[in-house]
């Protein structure tokens, strides 16, 4: 096999979201002349910043070989808590919701990593548990904050004419990338998702790493909750549900393996932007809301098929390369 072709094919299979992003941007640019304006791009990034922040956390859990479906409820809990605290103290309105996110994530992590329960079923359960508790506490009502406080700046402020949530989004991507690629934790994170038995045989108790990953997801979802709360001013307990589909689509479309051990935070970020571009294009083209929902559902299904295709193609390509070399 030609080495150059082999390298390109491997790059394509690992980073095909980049090609999708370019193709989609060109298409959207042709369909709408406003698409390539700086304002439109800032708008896309701003609108999808919370999705991006939460996606980073969920991607880490998937890389570790787990899954957490309760992130929507955690997001709702944190954002409602932030809205509740915001009129009382700016400092507490930022700190406590983030800590709440960590605690809820840690609770999931403890059940999954230390007790050994199935992550899908466990977090499906805690999703309902957290949501039900939130509904009891709020009686299902909107929790109102103030619109003229410094807290408002987090969701609506601008620095150098760039919306503040975009800094949060990019900062979190950088943090998650650094964590996953440059630290000992990151190495064990991938190893746990790929072959936790190898870690055990090397004398490493990876259950701490696994549990910590759920806590880190909670931390990032908590930060997302603060940004969301600041953006909305008043938060409904049902708010988190809106993010479930977008976040899972972004993570899967970004090439994070559902079996664990494979994933790139940068690709997840690009996938978030791709979803933003699709959403933006639908708005620019005047697609009715109901049709938008159908398209979003379709994209989710397609992303799963696409993820599966990538995994299969990588495996076929790998086997071919190995058999030719040996």
């Amino acid at each position: 096999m030609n080495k150059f072709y082999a390298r390109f094919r491997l790059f394509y299979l690992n980073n095909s979201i980049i090609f999708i992003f370019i193709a989609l941007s060109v298409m959207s640019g042709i369909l709408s002349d406003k698409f390539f304006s700086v304002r439109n791009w800032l708008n896309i990034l701003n609108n999808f910043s919370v999705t991006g922040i939460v996606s980073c956390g969920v991607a880490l859990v998937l890389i570790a070989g787990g899954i957490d479906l309760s992130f929507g409820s955690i997001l709702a809990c944190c954002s409602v808590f932030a809205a509740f605290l915001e009129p009382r103290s700016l400092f507490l309105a930022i700190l406590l919701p983030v800590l709440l996110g960590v605690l809820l994530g840690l609770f999931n992590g403890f059940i999954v990593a230390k007790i050994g329960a199935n992550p899908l079923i466990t977090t499906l359960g805690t999703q309902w548990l957290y949501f039900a508790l939130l509904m009891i506490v709020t009686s299902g009502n909107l929790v109102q904050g103030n619109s003229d406080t410094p807290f408002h700046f987090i969701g609506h402020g601008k620095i150098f004419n760039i919306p503040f949530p975009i800094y949060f989004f990019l900062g979190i991507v950088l943090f998650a990338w650094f964590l996953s690629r440059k630290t000992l934790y990151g190495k064990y994170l991938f190893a746990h998702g790929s072959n936790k038995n190898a870690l055990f045989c090397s004398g490493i108790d990876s259950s701490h790493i696994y549990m910590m990953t759920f806590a880190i997801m909670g931390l990032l979802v908590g930060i997302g909750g603060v940004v969301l709360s600041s953006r909305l001013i008043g938060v409904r307990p049902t708010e988190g549900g809106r993010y479930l589909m977008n976040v899972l689509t972004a993570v899967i479309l970004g090439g994070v393996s559902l079996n664990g051990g494979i994933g790139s935070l940068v690709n997840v970020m690009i996938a978030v932007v791709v979803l933003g571009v699709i959403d933006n294009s639908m708005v620019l083209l005047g697609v009715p809301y109901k049709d938008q929902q159908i398209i979003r559902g379709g994209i989710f299904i397609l992303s799963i098929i696409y993820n599966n295709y990538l995994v299969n193609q990588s495996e076929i390509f790998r086997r071919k390369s190995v058999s030719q070399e040996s």
Partner: protein
Amino acid sequence: MGTLVEMKGIYKLFGGLCAINNVDLTIGKGEVIGLVGDNAAGKSTLMKVLSGVYPPTEGDIFVEGQQKIFKSPHDARNVGVVMLFQDLALVQDLDVTDNIFLGKELPKRIFGQDMRFLLDRRTMDERSEKFLRELEINVDSIKEKVKNLSGGQRQSVSIARTIFFNARLVILDEPTSAISVKETQKVLDLILQLKKKGVAVIIVSHRMEDIFNVADRVVVLRRGKKVEDIEKCKTTPELIIKRIIGLNDGAGCNQ
């Protein structure tokens, strides 16, 4: 050749099933032992007891005369006993360097201080490249993910890892079962290199040819019992096969 490891009166029960029945095994320093037996003979169980995966139900393990209790593979590794499981030893989605340093990572030094949570990738890459070169293990790049290596290369990297960990006894579970003939020879050469470095090796294998290529001694297990423990030069593959399947062939039996 002094004694490195001694297993005395090892029993391992799984509920009512006796997987290992009063087995004694002595391993000398730098000795290569071929451990053979039919399926369910207890080979893997015995080796898992030795490497700390299972605690023995009864019996003692001595390393250089000192009694040891292995509660986990980590305990066994600490005294230099390392087992390489089939396809379990390596993390397929990590690169060669990451695998070699798994569990023994070098921390990055910043302002003279070790940052335990940060990895010194450059130094680890340099050391693993040099190390593989010394062992004549050829991989395209140490940045290559292990899953992209051939079976023989993967096995070689696994074995290299044990040397890197300063192992004194390496247990190889079916090291040549899924690799080509050419690569088998490379793996066997590597085992001989281990021997030269004074590392004892136990090979669990069905391939008699490989056992007779590198082993000094052959141990046969049948239904959890040791039925043969003999120097290679005093037996033949045919006699060993007869002992494995239980035919009374008149070969010397230490039972």
